């Protein structure tokens, strides 16, 4: 965990309001696993009190760069989207525990399910899984065809299925519809996306091996402020908790209430 003024190497809009930004700096050498995130200050000064938690999509250790994909929705992410190559941006990270692939074995079938801006960290994860000799099938959910991004990137890694809410691309509906429709089976299931999607998956596959990455509004991003807690499934006293920033954001299926 370091704080660094990272240099913007590239930034482009890859779908409406969805940006891909590439940052250069020492921080890259600290990243240990896909699913870790950065805490980004949108601008200097007191204009933004809180940093923005954004997942690392993938790193390129050789040239010390990492890529983040995010939706420019609110004031802070909009400000980040205005950065141009050569600008610097204050980044704190890498934070949290990423996806562990240690128990995956060669030949395993891994299903990766992502929704919207939950998709980016799954790209780095897919690369790690393939390195282990396992195979990857991906299901990605978007609002509509115009919102689709990183299709080619995931297609290059194995079978890819897409769902859109309006059916303008792939299956009409949500990711669980695709899984059912295609009769997809798996040894491991990894997911990241909006809570309703994760809840639907968790309902169907709470016993699955693999993991899920969660989101919550954050203060410190390191476990000190208790802003981002969630309830563990196993909680006899009713006061148990997990901190999404530091115990997560990645949790095993069935570990926490989504």
């Amino acid at each position, binding site marked *: 965990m370091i704080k660094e003024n990272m240099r913007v190497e590239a930034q482009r809009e890859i779908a409406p309001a969805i940006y891909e930004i590439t940052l250069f700096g020492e921080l890259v050498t600290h990243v240990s696993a896909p699913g870790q995130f950065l805490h980004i200050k949108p601008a200097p000064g007191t204009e933004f*009190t809180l940093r923005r938690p954004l997942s690392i999509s993938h790193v390129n250790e050789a040239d010390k760069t990492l890529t983040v994909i995010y939706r420019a929705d609110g004031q802070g992410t909009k400000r980040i989207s205005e950065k141009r190559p050569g600008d610097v941006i204050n980044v704190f990270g890498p934070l949290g525990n990423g996806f562990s692939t240690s128990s995956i074995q060669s030949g395993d079938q891994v299903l990766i399910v992502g929704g919207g801006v939950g998709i980016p960290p799954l790209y780095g994860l897919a690369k790690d899984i393939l390195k282990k000799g396992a195979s990857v099938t991906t299901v990605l959910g978007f609002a509509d065809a115009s919102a689709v991004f990183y299709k080619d990137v995931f297609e290059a890694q194995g079978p890819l299925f897409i769902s859109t809410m309006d059916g303008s691309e792939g299956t009409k509906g949500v990711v669980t519809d695709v899984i059912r429709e295609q009769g997809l089976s798996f040894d491991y299931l990894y997911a990241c996306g909006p809570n309703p999607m994760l809840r639907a998956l968790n309902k169907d596959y709470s016993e699955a091996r693999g993991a899920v990455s969660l989101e919550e509004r954050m203060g*410190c991003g390191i476990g000190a402020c208790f802003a981002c807690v969630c309830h563990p499934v196993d909680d006899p006293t009713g006061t148990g908790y997990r901190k999404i920033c*530091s115990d997560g954001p990645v949790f095993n299926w069935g570990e926490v209430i989504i």
Partner: protein
Amino acid sequence: MNRTAVNLPGLPMKNPVMPASGCFGFGREFAKLYDLNKLGAIAIKATTRESRFGNETPRVAETSAGMLNAIGLQNPGMEKVTAEEIDWLTSRYETPLLANIAGSTMEDYEAVAAHLSENNKVSAFELNISCPNVKEGGIAFGTDPKLAYELTKRVKALSTVPLYVKLSPNVTNIREIAEAVEKAGADGLSMINTLSGMKLDVKTGRPVLANQIGGLSGPAIKPIAVKMIYEVRQQTNLPIIGMGGVTTLEDIIEFFMAGADAVAIGTANFTNPFACPELIDEFEEWMEQKGYNSPADIRKGVEALS
């Protein structure tokens, strides 16, 4: 000679900067970022008699130059706090600890103060009388001078270390509360806690925070903190730990000029996780440049000017 040292009741601080309660947990996380011995003191997270989960999430929201929080005093309860957290801190660091004590009833507060006194590891107590929900029909201890007096008196009676009382800014007249707790035997004041605030999500019309209402902190509230410290400083010589939006070196100087004897950094730890050590370095450098021999000289400098 250490120009930045301040000696407050129970708190021999090598510099007058400490993280504010609730913004630093019990130190473990920030210990990964820098040496906690660098800090003048540490105000640890509010501790209650029983373990508490606190409020549901979302618990924080951003506002203009500030933030709202409604953590709800989450903590593992006094037994675990002493056994696991305070022990961890005191066995590794020399930095004096200011233990923030919270509760719903006077008996709760007394129980925590008694337990921490017995455990004998923290340097001072910070009585958090700004919790909105207490059994006395919704009147918080921090807003009624009589209740503030009684609670302070009772906790002071069984405390083995100096007692700071943390004042709420959500009052018509903060001097009245300061006077009451001073009469009841408080050894110092911490001010200010957060202001009650709220943010609605304009997409849904619902409060952003699950708890609806939260506490406003950060630079936005600094002018209110400065005014209250300045005002209370006119009537008492009790040491004041000042807080409320402190983010820059200038803010620290402003708080000292207003009458604070030390400052606590809350929200700024989130905006910049290295805020405390960076500010301590800047403050040391500034004190040396100015040729001041003690932070108290800042105020003397002002008085000489006026």
